[in-house]
């Protein structure tokens, strides 16, 4: 599959080359396809798998699907939210363990749950600029194999011990150790600046926007039902490669019902006074998994006889001041999407598919609620009125994180590849290519959103 005459130092497309310093014409970055491993509930099938294992498996499945063995890809970018310090070069190590050419460069990226989508956008931009012709974006996370740190007290003692020169000095340092210092420091999903977990943060927003329990359960029910139907239809046959005996996402409940979801006890927002509505059924569980997306210039895809599913049109990041309670922790996409659409001259009515990451069912509903709120539109988005409504029939039509699970950094890749396939299948109608919107909220009050268009 290698291209004869490919330059050893730069992109193969002469169209992308220009005189040094000259402004280059932007070209399109396309999604060729994707591959992920099934997502597993934490403590399940992938308990013994490291981030590197899972990312390598996802890469190898992608390589096999598209015949990329020994191929020198322009660049691979991926990341993990829960990452051990020894995995400083996680993505490069995964590349070295994969069937790709060892001459494929790679870098790690981390933007909490937006990691996966940000790798897609960053690499797509490099392709658009002509810096690279091909790329693999991705992400991985293991809540099962999460790194455990030592306490701050023990860490300081160990570092000082290392610097101590004599035995008496060492003994003196060691004498500072207290039993409580020996307790390990496990990672949590708490926000460092508020101490609140992500669920408790969302519960504040849920209460603020009066999101009902029934509406949340319905989002969750639809997610499971849509994902199960997609599996049954073979939709994931070319998006997923089994791993460690798992052939489907282990969080998927094919037999769930609204009645069953209604029986679950609330787990977040119990101390808010208002009725708690967020349950384990309408919140995503801790999950292990990895995903990858193959990106390319059109010329590279053509030269390799590979499909072109969708273009990466544009992306936008936003952040909110959740620390002072101005906005909810997971509400940044509510700001990012209006900015992105305005820049591209689009409205919500111009989209055929909406992929709004289901961190919690209430996150999706809160986002839709603020977009439908005239006051929010005027005072916060600077519009004449409400931003708009979306056709629910176009929302997460093949399921999303509530059913599939949410290995933080892997979610962006899952959504990008899934949406690209849906867009390609829908194709162009009345001269307009099918269009899809991705919205992903992230810890730290951030959000990354993107537009894809069918090819």
């Amino acid at each position: 599959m290698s291209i004869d005459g490919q330059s050893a130092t730069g992109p193969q497309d002469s169209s992308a080359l220009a005189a040094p310093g000259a402004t280059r014409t932007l070209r399109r970055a396309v999604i060729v396809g994707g591959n992920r491993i099934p997502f597993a509930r934490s403590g399940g099938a992938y308990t013994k798998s490291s981030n590197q294992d899972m990312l390598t498996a996802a890469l190898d499945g992608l390589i096999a699907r598209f015949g990329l063995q020994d191929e020198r890809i322009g660049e691979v970018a991926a990341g993990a939210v829960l990452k051990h310090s020894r995995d400083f070069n996680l993505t490069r190590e995964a590349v070295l363990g994969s069937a790709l050419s060892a001459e494929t460069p790679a870098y790690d990226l981390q933007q909490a749950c937006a990691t996966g989508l940000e790798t897609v956008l960053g690499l797509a931009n490099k392709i658009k600029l002509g810096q690279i012709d091909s790329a693999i974006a991705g992400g991985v996370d293991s809540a099962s194999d999460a790194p455990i740190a030592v306490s701050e007290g023990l860490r300081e003692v160990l570092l000082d011990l290392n610097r101590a020169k004599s035995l008496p000095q060492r003994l003196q340092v060691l004498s500072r150790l207290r039993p409580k210092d020996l307790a390990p420091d496990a990672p949590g999903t708490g926000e460092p600046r508020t101490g609140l977990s992500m669920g408790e943060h969302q519960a504040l927003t849920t209460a603020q926007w009066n999101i009902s329990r029934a509406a949340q359960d319905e989002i969750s029910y639809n997610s499971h039902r849509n994902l199960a139907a997609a599996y049954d239809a073979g939709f994931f046959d070319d998006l997923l490669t089994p791993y460690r005996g798992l052939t489907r996402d282990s969080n998927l409940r094919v037999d769930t019902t609204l009645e069953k979801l209604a029986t679950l006890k609330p787990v977040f927002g119990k101390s808010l006074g208002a009725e708690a509505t967020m349950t384990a059924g309408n919140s995503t569980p801790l999950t292990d998994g990895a995903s990858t997306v193959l990106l390319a210039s059109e010329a590279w895809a053509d030269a390799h006889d590979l499909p072109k599913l969708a273009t990466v049109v544009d992306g936008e990041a936003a952040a909110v001041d959740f620390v002072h309670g101005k906005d909810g922790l997971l509400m940044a996409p509510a700001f990012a999407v209006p900015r992105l659409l305005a820049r591209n001259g689009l409205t919500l009515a111009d989209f055929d598919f909406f992929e709004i990451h289901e961190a919690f069912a209430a996150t999706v509903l809160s986002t839709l609620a603020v977009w439908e709120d005239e006051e929010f539109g005027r005072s916060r988005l600077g519009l004449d009125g409400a931003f708009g409504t979306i056709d629910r029939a176009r929302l997460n039509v093949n399921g999303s994180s509530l059913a599939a699970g949410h290995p933080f950094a892997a979610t962006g890749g899952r959504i990008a590849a899934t949406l690209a396939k849906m867009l390609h299948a829908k194709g162009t109608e009345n001269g307009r290519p099918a269009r899809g919107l991705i919205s992903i909220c992230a810890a730290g009050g951030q959000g990354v959103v993107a537009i894809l268009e069918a090819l």
Partner: protein
Amino acid sequence: MTDKYTQLVSHGLGRNVARKLGLPQPALLRRYKPGQALISGPILVQGASAGAEELAAILLSWDLDVRRHAVPREKLGAIILVMDELAGPEDLEKPVLSAASSLRDLAPSARFITVSRPADGAGTPSGAAARQGVDGFLRSLAKELRAGATANGILLPEGVSATSPSAVAALRFFLSGRSAFVDGQFLTVSTAEGRLPSDFEKPLAGKVAVVTGAARGIGAAIARTLYRDGATLVLVDVPAAGDHLAGVANEVHGTALQLDISREDAGQRIIDHAVQRHGHLDIVVHNAGITRDKLLANMDHSRWSSVLNVNIAAQLRINQALMASEHFRDSPRIVSVASTSGIAGNRGQTNYAASKAGVMGLVRATAPLLAHHGGTINAVAPGFIETEMTARIPLALREVGRRLNSLQQGGQPADVAEAIAFLASDAAGGINGTVLRVCGQNVVGA
């Protein structure tokens, strides 16, 4: 891997003990590796016909050491007995007995190959008797040979010369280590079609081949063998086997297509994938198959129908799509994996044997349809092959199963793959609608 018993009795103490106790002494078979000589040792070509002369000349042109007369006590790599002009049973004795005197000079893993004509074209009862006689003679001789030596025959109907491409290719196949586990079998070369490769090490160069059921076992071995022979591969297996499939695909630089072949649109999806990724489609190996063993008294709808559906119906549908496609017209090749169960029957496998016998039936009936475009379809029927599947058979049964053939051992997945690679080659264009057994001349079946 050769089984442990075969390894044990092949050397030193184990060999001596087995010999003294009269235990089976399976030989380590000569199997093909790239760069390996076609055969080591001189080849004795016996027979006075023009065909014998022409064959000897071809062997000489390959720089092989060819004898037209036996040199006493010289170790022979092979004996080729050309009997293409038998008029009556009395014509058998002379060539057969002249070969007999050289049998003791055969080296380990030597080859005995007859070249004769099929009985049904003889024209006279005595001619047919003589020709059919070769069949019984060869099959019996195969059972007498030792030390990994095999005996196989090439059948040439009237009008097909001993030097036609497929006759020559079949001769090479039988001489080489590629046919290690083929024993006591006849290959019929029905036409003078076919083209010898420019490089015998890469007979499938430039070909795009699809292998179904490629994630493991025989399918994975087929993928590796076709890749070694130069083919570009599309590997198909059910989505649930995708991780193993990806591993094989990355090993052979192919593309993985996760697809349930029993889907209605499987044929079209295979064609679309092959054409989009590789521009064309030349070879399809129907290897995917399932077993759902049960005595007939306990058979139910799901066991029967799932086996028949995957093993035959899916293949019929895919073949239909292939033959309707303009992308499958340039000397296309289909090779189906059958089974000796479909020839001899197997207790508890009424469904599987029906499906595999069915495969042989469909292969024969499809042959004339493909011949239109210079295409062929053939089947390979494996006997006892050492795979993960046969490794699950209880030890005693497994031990009996693998010794019940002339080579006294189970075959390797690669042995099946070699036969498939041969039938998939351009050179085998004159071989159509046949079933080649890769069973070490299992005692069951024809």
